[in-house]
């Protein structure tokens, strides 16, 4: 058992390293093709080292370290995503439990869901009179849908067998919620959250480009204005890696709560 585990881990590390190497090769190829218009891995690495040497410096509103920008973005995503989930989960449970509420809300969801997050931005600005509020607002709106849809799907598909148990033994509403509805729906819910956080993390970059001030999106835009393509490339890699980590986190969470795998 232990041996196969070690073998698997080593295998994963090796394949990951190979994958990164491939990425660098393609990247280098593009650099050569564009005659160094797009900086290559080595040049980018030089800039990255400088950026990571002092990630938390703060020289006023337009010159902050990459660490500060990243935490600002993460904080906004966390706020918007949390508010979104706090709306989506209870509403999803209600929609899944009652056909009437489902019929009432489903058209609204279907109409609002395909709207680009950026279209909401002016409304957010109007409502909150501030760019920071507007950014959190669009994160909230866009991270609603996957959680809402997955939660309501999960609740609507609780097997009749489980409901019968609740009926036959006279479970209270609270017991039904905590011992049947939530355990059954949790894997669906977490899948929804996982999709939502992915969207939120994509939206934050666009949002911060519009709102300015701070954050990884602002950093990308600011670097473009400062004509530092190396910084943009570093930011892209950071955005990608953080997105991967967030996804892995929710996947691990899902595994931990999936009773099917136990």
């Amino acid at each position: 058992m232990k041996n196969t585990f070690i073998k698997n881990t080593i295998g994963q590390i090796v394949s990951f390293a190979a994958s990164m190497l491939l990425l660098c090769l393609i990247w280098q190829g593009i650099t050569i093709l564009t005659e160094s218009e797009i900086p290559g891995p080595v040049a980018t690495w030089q800039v990255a080292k400088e950026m990571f040497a002092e990630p938390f410096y703060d020289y006023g509103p337009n010159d902050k370290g990459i660490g500060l920008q990243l935490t600002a973005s993460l904080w906004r995503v966390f706020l918007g995503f949390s508010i979104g989930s706090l709306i989506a989960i209870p509403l999803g449970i209600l929609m899944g439990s009652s056909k009437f509420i489902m019929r009432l809300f489903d058209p609204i969801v279907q109409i609002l869901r395909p709207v680009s997050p950026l279209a909401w931005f002016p409304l957010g600005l109007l409502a909150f009179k501030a760019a920071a509020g507007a950014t959190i607002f669009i994160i909230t709106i866009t991270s609603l849908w996957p959680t809402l849809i997955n939660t309501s799907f999960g609740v609507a598909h609780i097997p009749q067998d489980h409901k019968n148990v609740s009926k036959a033994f006279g479970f209270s509403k609270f017991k039904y919620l905590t011992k049947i509805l939530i355990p059954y729906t949790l894997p669906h819910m977490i899948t929804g959250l996982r999709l939502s956080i992915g969207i939120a993390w994509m939206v934050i970059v666009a949002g911060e480009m519009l709102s300015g001030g701070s954050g990884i999106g602002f950093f990308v835009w600011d670097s473009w204005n400062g004509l530092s393509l190396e910084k943009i490339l570093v930011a892209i890699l950071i955005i990608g890696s953080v997105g991967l980590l967030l996804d892995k986190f929710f996947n691990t969470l899902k595994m931990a709560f999936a009773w099917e795998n136990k």
Partner: protein
Amino acid sequence: MKNLTQEELDLLQAEEAETKEEIAKLLAPTAIKIKNVTVSFKSKKGLYTALQDISLDIKKGEIISLIGHSGCGKSTLMNTISGMVNPTSGEVIANEQVVKGPGPDRGIVFQNYSLLPWLTVFQNIYEAIDSSFKNISKEEKKAIVEKNLKMVNLWEHQHKLPGHLSGGMKQRVAIARAFAINPKILLLDEPFGALDALTKSAMHIELLKLWNLDNRDKTIVMVTHDIEEAIFLSDRVVVLNNGPASTIKEIVDIPLERPRNKKEIVHHPKYKEIHDKLLSLLIDKFSISDY
């Protein structure tokens, strides 16, 4: 009276005792009274009547089997007792109360066990007890779980999830759960249908053991399509007509003495007679087209 000898007196007394026993049996309170029950469902093709005007009295402590072809409404009939299905007309009285919905006085064992897969064996039973007994302490509830799990020999598996149990073990948990809430009436919906023959036999004996432990006080209604099972377990077998609009075709008494022995009972002359009768009641429909 004065002219009777001691011997005659003894005889009289013995006879009296015997009649008393018989009378007691006859006078045993009715546990379940099904009165003119009709059940109809709305379907796409219109109203579908599953059961038509069924009446049946079941005495306290009786074991009754409902038998019939699939789709004949035997599960529906049982569900009117459990309260999972409300009759369209007529009523069911269980434990002297009109059935309006499920209640802790009637324990149900479902066809497919219906254990909650995310709860351990222990928790599955505990939650049922927790819902049924409001006024006892946590320790008392845990003690009831322990007692019932030990009864079905699953105490050492208490921490397992249902997914890790065999079919027979799951069924024992489901039975323990139904017994744990100490219902006066036990309703079993094809409880052993999914089990292999050996496990099934063992489960029959387990069930009767539990019933005996309780002084044969519990009334058991069981849905089955297994004739041997019905004869071995029941006092009476209720044969239903094929649906739609099923009615009771016949009620067959099983006058075999208890305790019954699985191996010996099949050689009993009465057994063969009953078996043949039930078989012909169930398969007469096919006998023409078979030849």
